[in-house]
């Protein structure tokens, strides 16, 4: 089932001024329920502008956004519905923490939705548990937490609104390797447990390859590629030409392939690469 369809979307900044910039031009794609989609692209390629359209923070200058079969720009459509269907987690969301306690910060969204006290509580508890935030932290000030903890609290605040589509702009940027793996793993588990759709924007080719089912590649405001992880990352030279790359492990295999070794190219992790190299070794390994 298609939950989100973007049709011929275009957007420019500063029309009629010297600062005119075409940010998105004629973008179309569909996203199915429960999919994990990564959006990659060079800085300034339009990724953040695109995601800000998905919950109607930015209104397209032309084209349409269809959420669960309904055109959100149609007259009479309640824009609040779009905001509740699509939960948007911005870059460095920890800068948006503001409440006195972790509990209240996570509860802020559900409260504004007008839910009952008991429903709010159960939302906060389940969102916190999804992001591995221990109950003992509920009464702490969010500002006393470590960088990784703050990030997880901020994401929990959006998850607590139970959006059908969770969109995260660079959810792991600036985190250390362990924090990065943890955030990505928790998002992936959240998707599995709820069946909700997840869209991430990322500069990490590794994260896109490891977690996504499908990758959308933006280049200068246009949809450049749209395919499975394998389909996208087999185009290493094209990605390179638009400022992107393939995961480091894949790079190694591509280089060996170019030297004439029969190695597979759709391998993205060290463990899988080791297994893929094994049959090609001269000596039998015990």
């Amino acid at each position, binding site marked *: 089932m298609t939950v989100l369809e973007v049709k011929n979307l275009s957007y420019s900044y500063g029309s009629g001024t010297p600062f005119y910039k075409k940010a998105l031009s004629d973008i179309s794609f569909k996203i199915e329920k429960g999919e994990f989609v990564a959006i990659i692209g060079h800085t300034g390629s339009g990724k953040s502008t695109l995601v800000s359209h998905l919950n109607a923070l930015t209104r397209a200058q032309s084209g349409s956004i269809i959420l669960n079969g309904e055109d959100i720009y149609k007259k009479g459509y309640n824009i609040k519905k779009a905001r509740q269907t699509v939960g948007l987690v911005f870059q460095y969301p920890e800068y948006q923490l503001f409440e006195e306690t972790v509990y209240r910060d996570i509860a802020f969204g559900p409260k504004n939705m007008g839910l009952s006290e008991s429903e709010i509580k159960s939302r906060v508890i389940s969102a916190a548990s999804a992001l591995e935030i221990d109950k003992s932290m509920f009464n702490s000030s969010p500002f006393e937490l470590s960088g990784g903890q703050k990030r997880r609290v901020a994401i929990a605040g959006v998850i607590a609104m139970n959006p059908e589509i969770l969109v995260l702009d660079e959810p792991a940027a600036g985190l250390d390797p362990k924090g990065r793996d943890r955030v990505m793993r928790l998002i992936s588990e959240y998707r599995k447990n709820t069946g909700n759709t997840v869209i991430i924007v990322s*500069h990490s080719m590794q994260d896109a390859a490891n977690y996504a089912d499908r990758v959308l590649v933006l280049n200068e405001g246009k949809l450049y590629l749209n395919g499975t992880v394998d389909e996208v990352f087999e185009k290493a030279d094209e990605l390179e030409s638009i400022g992107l790359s393939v995961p480091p492990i894949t790079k190694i295999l591509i*280089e060996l392939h170019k030297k004439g070794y029969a190695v597979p190219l759709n391998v993205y992790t060290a463990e899988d690469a080791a297994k893929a190299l094994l049959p090609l070794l001269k000596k039998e390994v015990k």
Partner: protein
Amino acid sequence: MAEHFISCKNVCFNYEGRSDAALKNVSLNIDKGELVAVLGHNGSGKSTLAKHLNGILTAQSGDVEVAGYNTKDENNIFNLRSRVGMVFQNPDNQLVATIVEEDVAFALENLGVEPKEIRKRVDEALEAVGMSEFKLSQPHKLSGGQKQRVAIAGVLAMSPDCIVLDEPTAMLDPKGRAQVMDTIIKLNRERGITVVLITHFMEEAALCDRIVVMNDGEVFLDGEPKEVFKHAQKLKDVGLAVPDVTSLCNSLQKLGVEIETSINKDEFIENIQKLLIG
């Protein structure tokens, strides 16, 4: 202590209202011309340490001497800061002017440098980071990697002996990351500028001469990348990792393959080719 360019001796620092110290008795020497990566989990004290290197923060106990100045000596703070420049994570927070070359000239104008000299230094700095052709561009129209190189040029125009970069590539795409790393390495190799690079990318650390790993406010490991990345498990325990190519070596070793541990792709490819049929 005079022989080291940067010398930290038993440095302790506590942020107000925090129970655990951000830096606990850190002692560390960095020589002129070194290219040093500082790794550590979020909150390990990396940025706090960096801020001690040009006197943004000063040691509550212990001493930091940089370029012969004690960072606590307020009379010399401007001399110190003109020798040690800093570049931060978000390029958008660091660019102030509406034209690239004016941005690079900003600090020099504030220092009252002669216009002719400013022209010369700005041109040289932009040349050094490969941004000359953009000198009349508007900063907001540049890519992230380009903006970050302009920020580096702004520091470079002050002719510093040392540049401290705090996660300069965290917000950049792969090409931007590569451009910034190439620029940093070039400045170090060709101009002998001492570089302290704070990063969460193990691949970037592997390109440096030396890696200092911080953990909970202390120096946890300190050595050449090849040595430091031998400690895969130890690094994992403190929230870090090894470069992907090193994990690949480790995975192969676990499967019984006798291959040397590499920290860069080219070395690995050379080694694995000796073992492959083809």
